[in-house]
């Protein structure tokens, strides 16, 4: 998602060089970063690992961090932007040598620097779990960085592949593998598209319990990005593949469950879709386990709704037939430079035909 901000910065400062500071528990993100950019890893996981290592002194992490900071401070930047908005990143901001800094930052002495930017104050007040935001996370970061959104429209494609990614980073946001299997079979039987299931290497064993091996692709991030680019559509929970799709202009459908707050974290581009159950406890707290006796939001999103929406998106003349549905459907668009999500009420769910008589999208 943060590459959207990088694209905005590149549009405003075409000759700028970029350095990313990334946690070292995510080394594979390098595959997604422009090869002309630099990456500096913050040794978060290393510090945690070393703290638990009984053979080294208890204050070893402090010494290692001090060394890392001295290397960091060898560099000077024109602009430093905090895209993470958490305490650690705020402290790190105080250690970066930069002529201008934006985003959350410690003042380097005793307190948090005043949030003079009103968009930063809004982000601070509205981005915690449970709070409602009228703006997408990317919109707020773009405003804080004072750069434009670089809008990527859905690309025309002749691909006959739809990618399904069942797993997210959080159990609460996952749809059951049985539901994904039903959806995959429905796509294969009712559309002209091939449904391929994608996952990371550590997810392979679980996927193979439910899906035939021939339907599974286990991919690294760079391969995944390529696969997304060459697909007709991506369907997933609220996770990174949706943002990859938005970046490369591949249409996406997000099944927003659990702590997923789609108004803040949906695909940042026009023409993407979200299905979100209207379950009362959704969105739930990001870092806590589901408090319900069963996964209610998942139960409120049976495969039929996803199938019905796909029927509209992929096939001709299949109007939605949702009566008092426990699910809401949304489509992303841009208005006045900001992302908005239009709820697709039944009256709006009519098909639009292009010049050749093919249905192309929902109105």
């Amino acid at each position, binding site marked *: 998602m943060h590459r959207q901000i990088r694209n905005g910065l590149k549009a405003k400062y075409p000759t700028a060089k970029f350095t990313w500071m990334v946690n070292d528990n995510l080394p594979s993100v390098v595959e997604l970063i422009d090869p002309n950019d630099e990456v500096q890893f913050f040794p978060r996981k290393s510090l945690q690992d*070393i*703290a638990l290592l009984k053979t080294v002194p*208890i204050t070893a992490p402090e010494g290692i961090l001090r060394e890392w900071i001295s290397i960091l401070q060898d560099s000077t930047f024109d602009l430093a932007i905090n895209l993470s908005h958490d305490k650690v990143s705020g402290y790190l901001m105080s250690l970066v040598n930069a002529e201008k800094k934006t985003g959350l930052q410690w003042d380097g002495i005793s307190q948090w620097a005043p949030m003079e930017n009103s968009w930063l104050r809004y982000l601070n007040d509205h981005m915690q779990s449970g709070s409602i935001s009228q703006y997408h996370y990317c919109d707020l970061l773009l405003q804080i960085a004072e750069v434009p959104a670089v809008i990527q429209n859905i690309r025309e494609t002749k691909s006959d592949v739809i990618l399904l990614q069942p797993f997210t980073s959080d159990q609460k946001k996952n749809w059951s593998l049985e539901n994904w299997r039903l959806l995959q079979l429905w796509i294969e039987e009712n559309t002209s598209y091939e449904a391929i299931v994608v996952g990371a290497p550590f997810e392979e064993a679980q996927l193979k319990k439910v899906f035939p091996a021939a339907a599974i692709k286990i991919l690294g991030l760079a391969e995944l990005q390529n696969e997304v680019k060459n697909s007709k559509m991506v369907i997933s929970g609220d996770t990174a593949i949706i943002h990859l799709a938005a970046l490369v202009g591949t249409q996406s459908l997000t099944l927003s469950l659990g702590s997923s707050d789609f108004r803040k974290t949906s695909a940042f581009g026009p023409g993407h879709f979200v299905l979100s159950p209207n379950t009362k406890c959704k969105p739930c707290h990001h870092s806590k386990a589901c408090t319900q006796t069963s996964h209610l939001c998942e139960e409120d999103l049976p495969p039929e709704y996803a199938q019905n929406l796909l029927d509209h998106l992929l096939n001709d003349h299949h109007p939605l037939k949702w009566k008092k549905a426990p699910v809401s459907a949304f489509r992303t668009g841009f208005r006045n430079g900001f992302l908005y999500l239009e709820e697709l009420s039944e009256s709006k769910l009519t098909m639009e035909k292009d010049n050749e008589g093919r249905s192309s999208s929902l109105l």
Partner: protein
Amino acid sequence: MATNRTFDLRANPQGYLIPHENGAALSCAIDPEKQARQWMDKNKHYIQLGLPVTVLGIGAGLHLQKLHQLTLLPITAVDTRPGLISWARKIFKQTEINFVLLEEKQSVLTHPLLTGEIGRTLPLIFEPAAGNSLEHFRTSAENLRGRSDEVWTMKNLDPAKPRHWREWAVTYHDVLHIEQKILKEVLS
């Protein structure tokens, strides 16, 4: 036992001076160079952390020489033998290696030159040089790591609790510096 110890230096065929205690060599008498290389290799992952190092056991000193030549780390070398300390100070007088005598029954918890290092230095034992002091070296290393019950009790921390950095830092530092603020978040 310490009072009955005899200490002498004997040249090996390659010309290296090998310290002996009660007739037993305190490093490999045949190829001390190879032994020092192997010790460096065994500890390389710890050495790469870049922390100040306290070496327990001086032996023939070749492992100290390699550590000094290959890194820029502050080095303290500890031994229980006064004669060996005196000899090593002369051999390494051109370096900044700090040699400290830790007598047999002396604890690092009360040693005026070592208490400040507790929890802050990487203790590495050179076992061939330990001789009869191996248990003392092991206990001292554990205390220098700052993770032993004795240290925890000395710092008024509960030995029953996990050896968590956060507890140590918050208790041990009156004012949290920026590094400690970061670690408090990262390690919580």
